[in-house]
């Protein structure tokens, strides 16, 4: 949350003259959040919060990792990518296939595939074969590696092809959206042996641990939290390095950068690949916690939703991106359950309306999102002190 504050004009650091500085407040807040995140599993252990709540927080943190990547490519570099959902799903499917191997088998075929197996003419039950792209996800370590490398590779292909031929702005967004939709259709076909529109579900164990065990759920939360903190720190290092300033320069004036001797396409492709890998990692963390992966994660609304997280949170600040993902998903969770105040009945159907209005509000009133609002508030507090 301290991104770029060091580059702000000197006048803004009013707080430092009068006691509590803005950066102290930020540090305290970050510390409190971190402490809460670490305490959450213990609270669950003590029965204060439900395991479901911890599981939900774990899933939303995984989505926070996607938001980090999108923020690097969109917030910092200025390229609106609508295929982070595709990379997320690629990671999710890698993990999904791996988990399916551990589950119920029929004739050696994982159940999710068995029930929708596309028999060719002349084939009958018992003649199923497991395709090679199922076999490679059998070993756990290889799955983890591929779940990150495959999205990275796909991002590399899209990135180099698109950026070398200078596909820009809205055209790149449309290109990435089209590819995501195409991939969704591909994954939806039973013939592709990827379990069709049903997707892969009913996971039982991961690396020998029962997924239904509350302790395993809490363990997955902890792993996700560690991954979120780790990727956050890597992103922080990236954005604070000269490399990060080149990304901002791409956003501000790609032409100037090219005439300063840089190859903007290489930097764009590099950060796009990195963002893709982050989304893949997130997909791998999300799938065992959600207990399902389906092609619907590649629907257009998911790509757009990811953009909304970053926009609402505040693009160009890593903290904002993660906060946006968390806040919107928590809101989603609260608003898609039924409740009533007096004679007013809240209906889950209202959620898209709320989301839409929230987005409009941010575009019109808070161009820097929640992070911008936070910065202003902290500035005030520091001033008052």
């Amino acid at each position, binding site marked *: 949350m301290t991104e770029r504050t060091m580059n702000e004009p000197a006048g803004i650091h009013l707080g430092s003259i009068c006691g509590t500085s803005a950066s102290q407040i930020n540090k305290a807040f970050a510390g409190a959040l971190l402490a809460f995140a670490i305490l959450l599993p213990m609270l669950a252990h003590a029965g204060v919060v439900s395991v479901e709540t911890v599981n939900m927080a774990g899933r939303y943190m995984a989505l926070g990792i996607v938001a980090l990547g999108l923020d690097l490519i969109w917030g910092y570099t200025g390229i609106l990518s609508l295929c982070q959902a595709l990379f997320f799903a690629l990671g999710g499917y890698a993990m999904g296939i791996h988990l399916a191997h551990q589950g119920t088998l029929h004739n050696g075929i994982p159940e999710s595939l068995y029930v929708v197996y596309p028999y060719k003419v002349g084939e009958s039950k018992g003649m199923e074969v497991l395709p090679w792209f199922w076999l490679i996800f059998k070993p756990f370590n290889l799955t983890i590696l591929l779940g990150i490398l495959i999205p990275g590779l796909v991002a590399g292909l899209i990135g180099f092809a698109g950026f070398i031929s200078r596909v820009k702005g809205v055209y790149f967004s449309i290109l990435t959206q089209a590819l995501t939709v195409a991939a969704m259709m591909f994954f939806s076909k039973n013939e592709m042996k990827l379990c069709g529109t049903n997707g892969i579900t009913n996971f039982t164990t991961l690396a020998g641990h029962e997924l239904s065990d509350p302790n395993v759920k809490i363990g997955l939360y902890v792993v996700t939290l560690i991954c979120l903190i780790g990727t956050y720190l890597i992103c922080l290092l990236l954005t604070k390095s*000269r*490399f990060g300033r*080149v990304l901002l320069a791409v*956003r*501000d004036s790609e032409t100037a950068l090219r*005439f*300063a*001797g840089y190859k903007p396409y*290489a930097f764009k492709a*590099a950060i796009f690949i990195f963002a893709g890998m982050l989304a893949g990692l997130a997909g791998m963390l999300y799938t065992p916690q959600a207990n399902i992966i389906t092609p619907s994660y590649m629907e257009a609304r998911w790509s757009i939703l990811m953009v909304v997280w970053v926009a609402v949170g505040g693009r160009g600040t890593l903290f904002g991106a993660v906060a946006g993902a968390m806040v919107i998903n928590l809101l989603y969770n609260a608003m898609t359950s039924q409740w009533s105040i007096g004679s007013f009945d809240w209906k889950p159907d209202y959620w898209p309306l709320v989301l839409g209005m929230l987005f409009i509000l941010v575009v019109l009133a808070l161009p820097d999102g929640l992070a911008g609002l936070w910065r202003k508030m902290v500035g005030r507090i520091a001033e008052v002190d």
Partner: protein
Amino acid sequence: MVAATIPDYKNERPDQNQLWDKKYLLFLSEITAVFDGFKALDLEHIGVMHNELRVVIGPNGAGKSTMCDVITGKTRPTTGSVWFGGEEITKKSEDEIVRIGIGRKFQTPTVYDSLTVYENMELSLPGSKGIFAMLTARRNKTERDRVMHLLERVRLADDVDTEARYLSHGQRQWLAISSLILSQPRLLLVDEPAAGLTDSETELTGELLLELKKEHTLIVIEHDMDFVRQLNSRVTVLCEGRSMAEGSLEEVKTNPEVIEAYLGR
């Protein structure tokens, strides 16, 4: 005084004279640039000598910026060739041309708005511009001194930590020029460095360019005649894409064609 016309470059063309680069750093040979049937450039020959400061003047739309585009690889000439420091660079890419040693300040100064003045300068430091180099770059004192020295010269030293978006137009011009100088090109193309500057700012810019002349080769494009006079250098007049005359300012001013081009507008 004899009115200047175009000098006879016939026997000095790089494709005919092996020794052309002893005399010239840059040579443009029969360049044309056509956009949708409109001939924006139709030059015969232009040679710029080592450590020369060449001023290019001409009315609006004469093709001055397009000439820079052609030299820096931003626009591919329809016909003709560009030669620089002993080799032909007509077909090279923008970033290759930069690395060979041609730097440019655009007509509207391009700076990175969300970077500070210092960070802007940093990206122009000579050396590798690859991803790995950027990931591992560390600040050091020699670099800092060089940057600060230049910034002091253009009165930006107090604004090192200011984001470029908060700079005035004149400061943006200077930031763009000092970034260019920092990158140590062999040839500097400076497109309208004095546009929009106050008189005193213009004068400082002129002094700066004259200082550079001692060790660099420069092409300066300019409209402001007082500024051109201050530079006191060889002038090329472009008009409707053609080079009309070359010589000292006093010489080109007596060329009837030039008078016609400037007054007949």
